[in-house]
């Protein structure tokens, strides 16, 4: 009994440490200003990136291969969604206009607004 209890305690301690580690990483990410949405469990099917106040939200998003991503512009100024590597390119999106792209191949897909290139984001596609 004693031994089992000890083991449980050890297990608990390791879990706690793991939790602390995870929280630390998340805090570090927060401090670095990196936004990871649903990082642990990639979203599937479809997901949305909002454009508000000259920024993509979330800025970085992880999805499963085959996911369709929809960008929607909520600003009073048009924006675009351009793949940094030329893999996709939207027309100018006026207020409430949308752009959609389905990511079939795993990989990282950085993008930006070609009108306001300070606006950047990334789609991470997992198998």
């Amino acid at each position, binding site marked *: 009994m004693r031994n089992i209890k000890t083991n449980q305690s050890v297990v608990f301690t390791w879990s706690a440490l793991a939790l602390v580690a995870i929280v630390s990483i998340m805090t570090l990410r927060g401090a670095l200003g990196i936004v990871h949405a649903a990082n642990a469990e990639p979203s599937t099917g479809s997901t949305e990136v909002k454009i508000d106040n000259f920024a993509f939200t979330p800025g970085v998003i992880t999805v499963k291969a085959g996911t369709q991503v929809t960008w929607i512009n909520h600003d*009073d100024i048009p924006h675009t969604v351009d793949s940094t590597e030329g893999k996709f390119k939207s027309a100018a999106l006026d207020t409430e206009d949308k752009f959609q792209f389905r990511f079939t191949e795993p990989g990282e897909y950085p993008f930006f607004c070609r009108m306001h290139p300070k606006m950047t984001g990334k789609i991470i596609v997992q198998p």
Partner: protein
Amino acid sequence: MANKKDLIDQNLQDLNNDGVDRRGFLKCMAWAGTGLVWTLSGGIPVSRAFAKTTEKGGSKGSDFSFVQISDSHIGFNKPANPDVTATLQVAIDRINAMPHKPDFIIHTGDLSQLSKPSEFDTLDQALKGATAKQVYFVPGEHDMLSDNGEQYLQRYGKGTKGSGWYSFDQKGVHFVGLVNVVNLKAGGLGSLGHEQLEWLEDDLKAHSASTPIVMFAHIPLWTIYPDWGWGTDDSEQALSYVKRFGSVTVLNGHIHQVMQKVEGKLSFHTAMSTAFPQPAPGTAPSAGPMKVPAEQLQKVLGITDVNYLVSGKSLAIVDSPLDGSSASSKAAG
């Protein structure tokens, strides 16, 4: 450096002689977005309140003058200004009502909101009503949205190089129109690009150092607020080519408010929009149309009048809000 700067400030004070502390005034004016005059005289810029200069007949006896208008955003219809065509018309009416007729108009970009043919048509129609028939354009990022800017270049870029840059001469002043809104890099600011910079260096070589230079482009060619993209990545290189000239005036738009800076012989100036104001840098979550009470809109929209005197080799710049009020009354902000 400090001594030299103090000396220039002293010169400014002496030449100014209007009781307005230049630094305090500029600080104040930067956000008032209304009127301010400054003159380049022998390479030394002088700032004056708008009312003072008009009193002294700033435009009287000038050898030629032109008007800068900017950021018309034809097609924009949001609450910040539901009728941008009407405010452009007011701007043109003000130009036509000037006691001296400007020789030409420079539009520093964002003619349209979405590069639509109908938007360009509306702008053209409005500008036809201006007494100054010659209009020089440079594109804003809103004008190059379709077909890599073909629509813009076909209409406004005849005879220009690359994505629409060019130069021309008027009564001894060399004007250069630059494009810094295409092929922008992710995470970057405005960009002129290698090809245009090479052209610029070559274009300026033909001119003597005593030739006054006026450079104009949409996005500021000086770094105003990089967080909002208010600057141009390779502007330093462009400015290095004009360092040898005795008088260089840089006119920009994009930020929808008056800001200016004097750096040696270089004078930088941004114009108001004819469509809607934008917040002062860092005072809002982001750039973008700023809603003001309807009765105040025409105080924050405006035009820029530039007068040139060959004899004094000087340029006088006056920003006038559309509502016709003088700048001095609003400089107290």
